[in-house]
């Protein structure tokens, strides 16, 4: 078991009233799964991914990750945990504009205090694998959207995470580029990486091993 959500509730208080962003979410994810989260806009997909990714908290419920209780953890240990095991891929790429492709990919390794020689080898592998060796000295603004997202995925993978969280990874891409990224995800999944993606696209969702439907912050079991 990779992670487990038990009766998760998340709300914000507005004008004295609770607005539920997530309510009573239960979810169990085994290692090696490829899950797609679907649902209309505003249904809570991003919110759920953020909770799983430990970027966001929740008010009620339990969250266990690799047997540790995330809800009872201090901020510091939590960030240690996600630094170690989770990689993020965002819709808007979120590359650091001031860094080159090479440096963007390298950054997570810097925060994990990995030795320079080892870093070089790891980044070189990654560049190779994604066929972007020739672009390594370019800045994000000099790349196409698809290439940027490729770099984003490469960066998410460099620290060898167990889990990749992808929030509409193809939202800004055309269908051909989308297909490439999804193909990549599939390969990664076959190599053993667990993937959870939020998506609007049935086609993309089909790459996954199971689909989770959300509606107004609840799982939709119909």
């Amino acid at each position, binding site marked *: 078991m990779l992670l487990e959500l038990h009766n998760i509730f998340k709300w914000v208080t507005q004008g004295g009233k609770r607005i539920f962003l997530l309510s009573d979410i239960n979810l169990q994810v085994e290692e090696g799964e490829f899950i797609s989260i679907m649902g209309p806009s505003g249904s809570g997909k991003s919110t759920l991914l953020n909770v799983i990714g430990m970027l966001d908290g929740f008010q009620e419920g339990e969250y266990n990750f690799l047997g540790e209780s995330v809800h009872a953890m201090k901020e510091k240990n939590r960030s240690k945990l996600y630094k170690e095991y989770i990689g993020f891929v*965002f819709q808007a790429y979120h590359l*650091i504009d001031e860094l080159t492709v090479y440096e963007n990919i390298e950054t997570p390794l810097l*925060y994990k205090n990995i030795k320079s020689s080892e870093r070089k080898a790891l980044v070189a592998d990654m560049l190779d694998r994604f066929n972007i060796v020739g672009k390594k000295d370019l800045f994000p603004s000099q790349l196409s959207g698809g290439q940027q997202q490729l770099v984003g995925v490469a960066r998410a993978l460099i620290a060898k995470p167990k889990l990749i969280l992808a929030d509409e990874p193809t939202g800004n891409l055309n269908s051909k580029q989308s297909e490439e990224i999804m193909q990549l995800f599939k390969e990664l999944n076959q190599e053993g990486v667990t993937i959870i993606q939020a998506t609007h696209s049935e086609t993309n969702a089909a790459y996954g091993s199971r689909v989770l439907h959300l509606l107004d912050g609840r799982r939709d079991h119909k």
Partner: protein
Amino acid sequence: MIRNYFKIALRNLWKDRTFTALNVIGLTAAFGVAFLLSMYALFELSFDQFHKNVDSIYQVYTTEQIPKGVELSEANPIPFAGALRDEVPGVHKITRYVTGGPLITYKDKTLRVGSAWADPEFFEIFSFPVLEGNTNNPIERSTVALTEDTAKLIFGNENPIGKLISIKRDGEVVPVTVAAILKNLPEASSLRFGAIFNFMDLPNSFYKDKKDRWDAHNHPVYMQLAAGTSIESFEKATRPFSTLHFADEIATAKRDGAKPNAEGQFRQIHLLPFGNVSFTNFDTAELIVNKSLQYVILGIALLILFIASVNFINMSIAKGAQRLREIGMRKTLGAGKAQLFFQFWGESVLVFVISVALGALLSFSMLDMFQTLFRTNASFGLIVSPVLIFGAVVSLLLITFIAGGYPAVLMSKLGTLKALKGKLEVSGRNRVRNVLIVVQFGIAILLISGTLVLRGQLDYMRNKDLGFNKEQVIAFPLSSKKDHAQLMQLMRDELSGHPNIISMSASDNILGLGRDGSSSTSVMGFDYKGREVSTNLLFVDYDYPETLDITLVKGRSFDRRYASDSLSIVINESMAREFGEKDPLSIRFTLDDSIQYAVIGVVKDFNFQTMDKSIEPISFFMNSDKPLYQAYVKVAPGNLTQSYDIVKTAWNKIEPDAEFLGSFLDENIDRTLQKERMMTTMISSASILAILLSCIGLFAISLLVVSQRQKEIGIRKVVGASVSTITILLTKDFLKLVGIAFLITTPVAWYTTSQWLQNYVYRMDLTIWVFLAAGAIALVIAVLTISFRTIQAALKNPVESLKTE
């Protein structure tokens, strides 16, 4: 990791070149000026600290109870020092000290050398190392010790040790042997001389004639306190000494109605720590050690650094808004708070390191200019010490830590999600920014008010009617080997009949401060109708009031037709009040037991002293035996330069060997205002810099605000807002801040400036207009600064600004 940070830092700084440049320029200017100002203040504060014994050296001074209150005196009678050592326990070493400017002749060279006379223990108390010659006692009788520079001046490359020079003393030429060469005096020494003689080699009129007299006070005394003796116990132990030796003075004081002090004493000897001597004013009733000017200057340096740092903080925070995504991104990639903090702080450190380096360069390159402008010899080399360097490094680190650290803390504390979404609680940050801008402009307004008041007072003092004609009178010292009276007569003969020359006179003292930098006061007390009156003394030549246009209100001035005028005096109105007679012309009084003097005239009060004093009583004597050191020539109002040249030519003809040191009296008055002028220059420059820096900050903030509100501006224009409404919208928030700064600062500025003006008996009126003007200046400059960008933004085609979003 560090390399990665460094790379990013450089790229970021480069990407925002405008802001980086604004920051670096502002901080460089601030550091440069702060370095110079603190160097100057620290130099002044380091005065006399170089003496190894500085903590145990004291100047001896006395407080005397007089009918009007208390008087301070640093002058002592000749037998005083020796008796003090013999009779009061606790004196380790003691020396008498007096300065003068004798003419020293060697071969055919004659020059005036600033000199001192002291007892041999002088060299054991103070640290003036002997380089060559008699190290044991460099000032035996009839010998002299010269500083390196003076020796060079007199002897060139000859070896001076053992050579004979001659000085004029008591009308005779006396040979003196050069016994030692002293290391040049440190710049930070308040004791200054080029040559130093044995105290007993002073002229007879100064030393021998007064050797046993306790009533002639003519020199300061310095001593070293024995280890284990406290100042209080020593001062207490001197009471019987004072009672014994100054019995006559004490009796007179008692008779005239003086009240004893809290300890029941009429005279009390005190010790002033020598390190405080250069900050002390003995002209007041209470001893005041005043280091405030130095601390004000240090304070200004800090204020300027503060303003520049505020700019840096405000720009960093505002720019942080544009880096939110980067912050969020890094957090999801595993960056901890500490790592983010160090990244942002590192960028700040980089900016500061560059600015400090450039600022240091700037201050070094401006040093010459600074020294000339502020007439100081202060330089960095004079004040360096391990402690100082350590202190400077610590304070620079502290500034960097706070100014760079605060924005870094703000940014690293942001929540990951909020940062990613680019959300920012704007209100809190803006509050900090606004407070900082208010403080910044408050400081600027304070400094501008200070400048305006200082300038006003300076103008007031320059233009005030002093009661004598300062525009048309040339004064020059009669310094030459010739007899003064003879020289004066020759000048008279040479100049009389010249149409430009109206009248001539002389006196033994100068008005203002002459080009030779000399000035002195001479005060005398005597009994009149059973009580003591005191007056300033001035020995004058004929035509003194006439030459200086001092108005005669009663009686007559000295007249060549009356032979008895050598026993007549002319007094001023204050002196007439001091006598307290209805008809001042009836006043007769006796001096020196037998000689009777008569008042023949009263002149209107005139400011013969500086304007921080009210006009004191003064009496003019005319005694042909008294040497008159200063000549005055009144010239015709037209062509003043030409008249000056006429007098100079006459002098050069009569006395070709001595330089003509004449100057118009208004220049002399100006010279006395040097401290005020220096303060004005310093505070004006500081306030200009402060307002410039504040404007750089405001400008940068306006750039950022405009760029952040570009979309809003575009939409408002599309909806129909005019250029002026948009400009006002963008400008008014900032102007509000300047307004608040004005309201807060004005009372502070009013209080400090009026407090400062209290130092002057004659002072300008302080009105609200000064402060309104200061506020208006700040406001106008602020408006101009902001409008530069806001108008540009308001004029921009809305389609363009909407497209960029």
